[in-house]
């Protein structure tokens, strides 16, 4: 049976990533249906209910899009860092760090102009995300330490720090036994655009375009691509590969930090463990499915936001919300397998004919 070999296709269809996603999603719906059938539920009923309650009205649609914001922003951060072929597994920690930095800035300052205050608070959350990835970035460029490990480990450190703060110095006495920091003033809540849709979504759109511009249209994006392709080529071209990697990591971390900031100012309004429900990890799935394309991350982020909302509402009819996570994960799995078949082909071995 050794007569077949795998060979890399020279040319890939430009839309292959999109097709892979579709195939993955269809496989995921199929797998989800099977699980529902085993539980004696009618998949069509469940899915149509999910659809109705996630996008069926202005309110449910805005709930879905609100959920999409952290997924999209963290996913964009991951995709920027991937321009230099590095992986950021630490978006979850960066989200928390963004919220912590925002709260730190909030506690220590007082500004009357609420628009300016919101702007400065969100800037603080961006910087917080950057600070969170600073150590992985430094150890990467100085000593070549694997960033997958270090960014993953910072998640635990930052989560521990969050627990420490909300049980200690930041603990709000009014929250009784629930560990959480004090609420921020309503003055700095992000305004609602329509229904329940937070204006954070507009920020999200702007940052999607910004990430697209950085990656595809800017000199910096070009330099990141070359540095990611080969460090020696970058040096040969007069590009400091280490500098690009460092900057890419700080910017990408900042995107995830901003997600935490927006989540705080629009959803939780205080620092608690509820700042992120695994958004930083789901964002990896979102970024990977789309082949790290910002516009794709935006669309898939919206879809995954809707799935999360849909998943939480079907609990009311006795279906576990995990069905949404199963669909998300299976989509990635299916899309990766499909991408594999778009990139490789199985050929009959010619040598031994």
């Amino acid at each position, binding site marked *: 049976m050794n007569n077949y070999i795998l060979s890399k296709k*020279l*040319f890939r269809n430009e839309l292959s990533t999109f097709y892979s996603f579709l195939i993955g999603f269809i496989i995921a719906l199929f797998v989800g249906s099977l699980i529902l059938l085993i539980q004696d539920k009618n998949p069509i009923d469940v899915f149509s209910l999910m659809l109705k309650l996630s996008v069926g009205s202005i309110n449910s649609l805005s709930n879905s899009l609100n959920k999409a914001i952290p997924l999209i922003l963290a996913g964009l951060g991951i995709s920027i860092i991937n321009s230099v*072929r590095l992986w950021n597994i630490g978006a979850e920690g960066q989200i928390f760090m963004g919220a912590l930095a925002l709260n730190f800035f909030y506690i220590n300052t007082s500004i009357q102009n609420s628009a300016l205050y919101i702007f400065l608070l969100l800037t603080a959350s961006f910087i917080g995300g950057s600070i969170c990835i600073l150590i992985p970035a430094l150890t990467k460029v100085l000593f070549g330490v694997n960033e997958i490990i270090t960014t993953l480990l910072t998640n635990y450190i930052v989560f521990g720090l969050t627990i420490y703060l909300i049980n200690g110095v930041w603990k709000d006495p009014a929250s009784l036994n629930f560990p959480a920091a004090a609420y921020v003033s309503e003055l700095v809540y992000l305004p609602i655009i329509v229904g329940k849709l937070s204006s954070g979504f507009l920020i999200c759109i702007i940052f999607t375009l910004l990430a697209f511009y950085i990656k595809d*249209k800017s000199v910096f994006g070009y330099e990141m691509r*070359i540095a*990611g*392709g080969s460090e*020696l*080529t970058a040096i040969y071209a007069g590009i400091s590969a280490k500098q690009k990697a460092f900057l890419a990591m700080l910017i990408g971390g900042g995107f995830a930090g901003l997600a935490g900031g927006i989540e705080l100012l629009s959803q939780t309004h205080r620092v608690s463990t509820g700042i992120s429900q695994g958004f930083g990890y789901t964002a990896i799935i979102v970024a990977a499915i789309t082949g790290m394309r910002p516009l794709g991350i935006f669309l898939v982020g919206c879809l995954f936001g809707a799935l999360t909302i849909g998943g939480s509402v079907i609990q009311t009819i006795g279906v576990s919300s995990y069905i949404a996570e199963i669909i998300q994960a299976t989509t990635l799995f299916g899309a990766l397998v499909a991408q594999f078949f778009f990139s490789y082909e199985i050929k009959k071995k*010619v040598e031994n004919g």
Partner: protein
Amino acid sequence: MTVPILEVKDISKTFGKVKALDSVDFFLQKGVVHGLLGENGAGKSSLMNVLSGIYIPEQGTIKVQNKKIDKLNPELASSLGIGMVHQEFRLIENFTIKDNLTLSKANIFLENFKEAYLKYSEIFSLNSSYNTLVKDLSVGEKQKVEIMKLIFKNSAIMLLDEPTAVLTPQETSQLKISLETLSKEDEKTIVLITHKLKEIKDFTETIFVMKNGKMVAENLQTDEVSDKHLIELMMGEIKTISIRKDNLKGETKLEVQNISLINNDEVNVLNDISFNIKSGEILGVAGVSGNGQVELANVICGIQQEFNGKVLINSNDVSGKGVKSRKKLNLSYIPENRLGVGLAPGVSVLDNSAIREYFKASYGPHLSKGKMVNYLNDLIKQFSIKAPDVKAEISTLSGGNMQKLLMGRELISNPEVIVAAQPTRGLDVSAVESIHKLIINQRNEGSAVLLISEDLDELFKLSDRIIVLYEGRIIKEVDIESANIESLGLAMAGINE
């Protein structure tokens, strides 16, 4: 004529749409050194792979000692005494010479290994104990072990694929003597595969020539055939470009003053190197690789920024400055390592084409794709590059087209100074010709060229002057008129008479 020890008739082998072997006849006489000549891609290696049982041909017959062999496979070929030395060595680096030699189950010198080793290490002048680890040997020594491996497993027919590609001139002539001894004393049948004319004339008694998968000449007697005839057979037609060596030389463009460099292992890799190159002049740098060539190029091109000494381009001191300062003074660097340094793997053809001048396609932080595409289209047209899809990865181009893209990118702006390292390594004859033409055109346009090459023929053909690097020093400097291959070869080995 005696019965051939091996004879193949009418062999064909296709890969997809490509006919690698097209009804090829070939035969070997016992105890004779045969030459198999042809350009890259002519089918030499395919034929050898058929003989060693790796490829199964679609048609044709194979006879060994007049016995027809039906289904040749690697094991059977080995037991019939057919052995091959591949271009990439197949030695176990962490094993000793002895372990490598006796590894094969066909090994015939298990009992009297010591005497056999003594005999053959003398024939090959291999001065290492058989307890030496292979990883501690030089490339030339490894090759000797690789050839001895065939003897130890009793191969009567030895197929050697481009054995001289990695050797110094001295090692090459040593190999010649060893092979002669083997063919005369042990009656070994040897096939030397090469695209180097000089070697085939030196080494062999009879020559076969392949072109485009066909055997175009059989059993030519080496003494009787002329170089010109062989080239005609190999290349179809001779395209000799006459190179004026009385080219106009202008003012000094590149000046290198007393450069010394100590690397991280505290080895003096460059030692007091000084030279200058005028406009319209090609300075050839000869030397076995690893004698400071890469370091010298990196110093001149600004990749290595910490060194002692001075580099001046058009009288501007650029020592201590980076790559971009050189680009501003219009220096181009064609690095030895094409894919990995000159071109970034995994990145598109378009992105790779802009590496030298991408900042010219920028407005502030914005990079204009339109300008990049126009620039690439100019390159494709001017240097006739075949690039089917510019958004595809660079590795979708063939080696020759990659090098053309790299050369084109570095040459299109008529650079003042060009540093070219091994620009034709691994390319076939026609690609080599077109690269040579590009370099000469550039020289005639008034560029100062530093040409680093291990190929002495190339250096002789293109250079106005030649310097030889040995252990980081300039051991010899000659004008092309007074240069001769032998003394340069000796200088490459560190001997300067």
